[in-house]
């Protein structure tokens, strides 16, 4: 049940994210999500790999719960934007679609479990729902920063999936993946800074010079 509660917590962070307009609040929620992800290795892995689990957990919490939010907050301060003013999809509708995505995730989770992955439907569905939420945020939000948050949530979903389904990956690979994501977020932060300097804002909807 503890594991269930963690998954429910993760799903709730996604739902809150879908309904939240304040960028700083969204960053905080993503940070919470990252920190909760750090707990997952303890619950999901065999205890005989404690050293590795500890290493992974500390790194995850530090990166996803600390460094990423810090980077994003810095970008946020520099661009002087507080809210996602006019998302492509309103917040109530986002939430409604979120419910639909949740149902889809649970359905798909059941299907995937049936084709032979030995994990619970809830864990699979949670990972899928995080991916869907991330993808949805990337598509439907106009602020560059929100899109980065969406990317992070997507990444979190895949990471959770990896923790649950795949146990025997070489630690070098995991390190490399985390490093890549870190660099991606860092570069996106720099890009946001440059974009806001060139455009005086970070609305992606005004990036419409290139068409066809």
């Amino acid at each position: 049940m503890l594991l269930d509660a963690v998954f429910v917590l993760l799903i709730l962070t996604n739902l809150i994210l879908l309904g939240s307009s304040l960028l700083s609040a969204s960053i905080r929620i993503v940070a919470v999500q990252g920190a909760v992800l750090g707990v997952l290795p303890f619950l999901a892995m065999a205890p005989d790999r404690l050293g590795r689990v500890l290493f992974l957990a500390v790194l995850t919490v530090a990166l996803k719960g600390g460094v990423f939010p810090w980077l994003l907050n810095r970008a946020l301060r520099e661009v002087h934007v507080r809210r996602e003013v006019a998302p492509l999809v309103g917040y109530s509708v986002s939430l409604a679609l979120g419910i639909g995505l949740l149902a889809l995730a649970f359905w798909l989770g059941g299907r995937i479990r049936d084709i032979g992955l030995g994990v619970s439907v809830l864990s699979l569905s949670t990972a899928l729902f995080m991916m869907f939420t991330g993808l949805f945020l990337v598509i439907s939000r106009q602020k560059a920063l929100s899109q980065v948050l969406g990317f992070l949530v997507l990444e979190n979903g895949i990471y959770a999936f990896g923790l649950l389904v795949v146990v025997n990956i070489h630690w070098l690979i995991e390190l490399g993946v985390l490093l890549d994501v870190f660099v991606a977020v860092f570069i996106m932060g720099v890009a946001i800074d440059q974009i806001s300097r060139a455009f005086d804002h970070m609305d992606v909807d005004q990036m419409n010079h290139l068409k066809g």
Partner: protein
Amino acid sequence: MNVVACVQTVLVLLLAPLLPGVINRTKAFFAGRQGPPVLQLYFDLWKLAQKGAVYSRTTTWVFRAGPIVGLAAVLVALFLTPFGKSAAPLAFGGDLILFAYLLGLMRFMTVMAALDTGSSFEGMGASREAFFSMLAEPAFLIGLVAVARVTGSLSLSGMLANVSAETWLRVGPALVLIAAAWMVILLAENSRIPVDDPNTHLELTMIHEVMVLDHGGPDFAAILYGAALKLWVMGALLVSLLIPVHPGVLWKNGLMFLGGMFLLAVGIGVVESIMARLRLARVPQLLMGAMALAALAMMLVLK
């Protein structure tokens, strides 16, 4: 229909107007005021019942039927509502649907009566009420269905009595979600802060109070009493869900349940004291959030 259940229901009929009193006292305490007496609603009801009613010439029978049908509907709903873990006078498989529809009927009649006045102000309140309950009802029903699924019973009394410590250990997260969703809906449906402000009639953002502006005398008494009963029945479901043990003994159950109701009223008072009313545009989002919680709970129990 057993005698105990009937006695309990009569007790509820007498106690229901206490809830708003407790809520108001809690709010007054937080504001550092003396506050109205706990029995204020009883005095109001008594006063209103003495008066005659005035009806506008533009209204029809719908306007007069509104409060009466509404009160009747919620009374029937009360007969379906369990008293803690002890069964209601009326309990049969599928009564949860009837329960939801009775509350729906009450709302429908209130809305119709409001529209019947022809006043634009009341029409505004009616449209808001209809819109918000459109969002609140599915969430409420989804929660009921989820509980039914967990406990394997299709009647309100049965399923709430079946919620035990074991249930909580098994599907605790789902039950917490349902309780949270129901709390939001309880606040919304009973026109409490943060959805609606029960204190004032004349704000442009009012919902429930604005619909009943034109009622007076016994009609208004029926409305006030009906509202208190509605708060009670919805609160009773929530409290019964949250009590994780079945005491077995009658007086223990009664004590626990009434204690729970008292705590719930205090809780509502606290919420009203520490929160401001949401902007109207944010209300659908709140209700949608409640629906998301209920849906998530549903999926958790379905998997």
